[in-house]
């Protein structure tokens, strides 16, 4: 592969001279698992970090938010960070307390739950919030496109999304569907790549996942513009970031990474990486399809982390 000129660009926008000197002495590993939604963000972050810290190995996996928490909240050999596309649940917090693990939540970016359809699907490009949710509900009574709009094709809809390992699944189920059951025909997958592939090849497919995966696959997928009551809103970095009626509001969500604070105290490279992540969160978020956080959120996180030193 041709060597990208991007390398130099990235070097210039990271850290100051002082930080680099400090990092030069760091070594060891940082282990991150969790959200598949956050994965592209975290992978890019890790890659950038390792470009500057040759001796540190940052390992990023994407088992899904819930599966990730199971590996984060263990007595021994747990992960250092768990990325999450939802808030930590009460039972997970309880487990952390039981194990004596101090967990700290850092918001890293904003995401919008995006409903994607096949490029050939030229009818369902706009739906109301109610319509799009109905497709996924067991009691929604929708099996064919024509059940939503009689003018649409009388073909079976193929709803799909991430499986229960994923925070996105739970966000959909708990927040959007208000804990009503999924329709039986829903096809739940482990890998986001599978969903992208399936929708890109199936005219009747509709899937939900984080905006980032739509953003990087715009050539293969179309997004549904959702009408939340004020006219259809196209998901985009702008609309996700907006906090008003023109925004993508009910479908937006913060995404996080959870830090094992004990590990950060024990392993300097973990703490260093955490700080690095917060310092660069805005830039990397924009590159990987997330709406960046506000400065004050970032500052708050950094000062907490600096306090751990």
């Amino acid at each position, binding site marked *: 592969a041709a060597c990208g000129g991007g390398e130099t660009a990235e070097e210039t926008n990271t850290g100051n001279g002082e930080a680099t000197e400090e990092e030069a002495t760091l070594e060891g590993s940082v282990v991150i698992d969790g959200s598949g939604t956050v994965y592209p963000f975290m992978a890019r972050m890790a890659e950038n970090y390792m470009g500057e810290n040759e001796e540190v190995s940052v390992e990023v996996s994407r088992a899904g938010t819930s*599966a990730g928490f199971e590996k984060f909240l263990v007595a021994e050999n747990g992960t250092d960070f768990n990325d999450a596309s939802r808030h930590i649940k009460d039972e997970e917090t309880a487990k952390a307390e039981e194990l004596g693990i101090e967990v700290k939540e850092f918001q890293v970016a904003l995401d919008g739950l995006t409903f994607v359809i096949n490029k050939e699907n030229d009818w369902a490009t706009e739906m109301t919030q109610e319509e799009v949710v109905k497709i996924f509900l067991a009691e929604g009574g929708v099996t064919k496109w024509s059940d939503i709009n009689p003018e649409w094709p009388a073909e079976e809809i193929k709803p799909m999304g991430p499986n229960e390992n994923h925070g996105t699944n739970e966000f959909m189920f708990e927040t959007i569907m208000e804990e009503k059951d999924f329709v039986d025909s829903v096809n739940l997958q482990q890998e986001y790549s599978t969903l992208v592939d399936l929708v890109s090849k199936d005219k009747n497919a509709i899937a939900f996942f984080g905006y980032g995966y739509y953003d990087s696959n715009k050539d293969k997928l179309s997004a549904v513009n959702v009408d939340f009551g004020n006219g259809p809103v196209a998901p985009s970095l702008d609309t996700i970031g907006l906090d008003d009626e023109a925004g993508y509001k009910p479908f937006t969500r913060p995404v996080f990474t959870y830090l094992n604070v004990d590990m950060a105290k024990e392993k300097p490279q973990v703490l260093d990486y955490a700080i690095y992540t917060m310092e660069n969160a805005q830039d990397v978020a924009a590159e990987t399809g997330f709406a960046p956080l506000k400065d004050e959120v970032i500052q708050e996180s950094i000062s907490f982390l600096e306090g751990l030193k």
Partner: protein
Amino acid sequence: MIEKKRSTTNLTSVTEKFMPKFLLAIATISILTTIGIVVTLLTETINFFRDVSFLDFYTGTILKPLGDDAVFGVLPLLLGTLYSTVIAMIVAIPVGLMAAVFLSEYASDKVRRVLKPILEILAGIPTIVYGFFAYTFVTPLLRSFIPALEPTNILSPGIVMGIMIIPMVASLSEDAMSSVPNTMREGALALGSTKLEVTWKVVIPAAISGIIASFVLGISRAIGETMIVAIASGSNKDFTFDLTQSMQTMTAYIVEVTGGEAPAGSTIYYSLYAVAMTLFVFTLIMNLVAQYISRKYREEY
């Protein structure tokens, strides 16, 4: 010289006594491996059957390993495995057998010397490469004929698996046919048979157990094949009979669950072992059957 000899005698005789025991210890590693496999699988499988009843597992048509209402029925996986195996063998048996007949009965020495190594190359290609081939080439190709075919489906990996198994069936069947004595061929030719008749009525019946053994080994290989299905057959766990659909095999399930890194101790983690145990037993039976059949045929002449 002989004095020196004596000084080494002690060491030599110690080595002499020690070596056989040491080598025996090494040789038992292979047995330990088998024991390791069986014990590992069995222990966790027993744990699994504490959570899920044996009957439910082997008669259940619903497999939903995640979420609060997890259900473990292995039939969808068995069906997926059965489908991929049957499709593979539908490709591998006729093509492999015909290739074997060609190489053993029709081809001249020169032709055989060119074609056999090509089959061997085919057998040496890593399965991941076949997986890539199935997913990025065969599936799109098939979809242009069968529009209903899902992007991941059981048909395409089944076919590619069959192609992968062709060399195995061909070479083992050819071995069996080549060991049929020439006098039998001559006897049949002298009665006015054509080559096809000699092959069909004399050589194949005489070599039948070796040929069947090659089929059984092929089946065993198809049951155990992992990467092709893991890449190209998707992870649909529905109990469906439609081969244009995605279906998961036992092997692909194992890859999916370990790839998602199910935490130790959960039911889904144990289910990994129960499925692997089932897979292990199936392939073991197939291998033993193949060994039995081919041992029987070796005794024939």
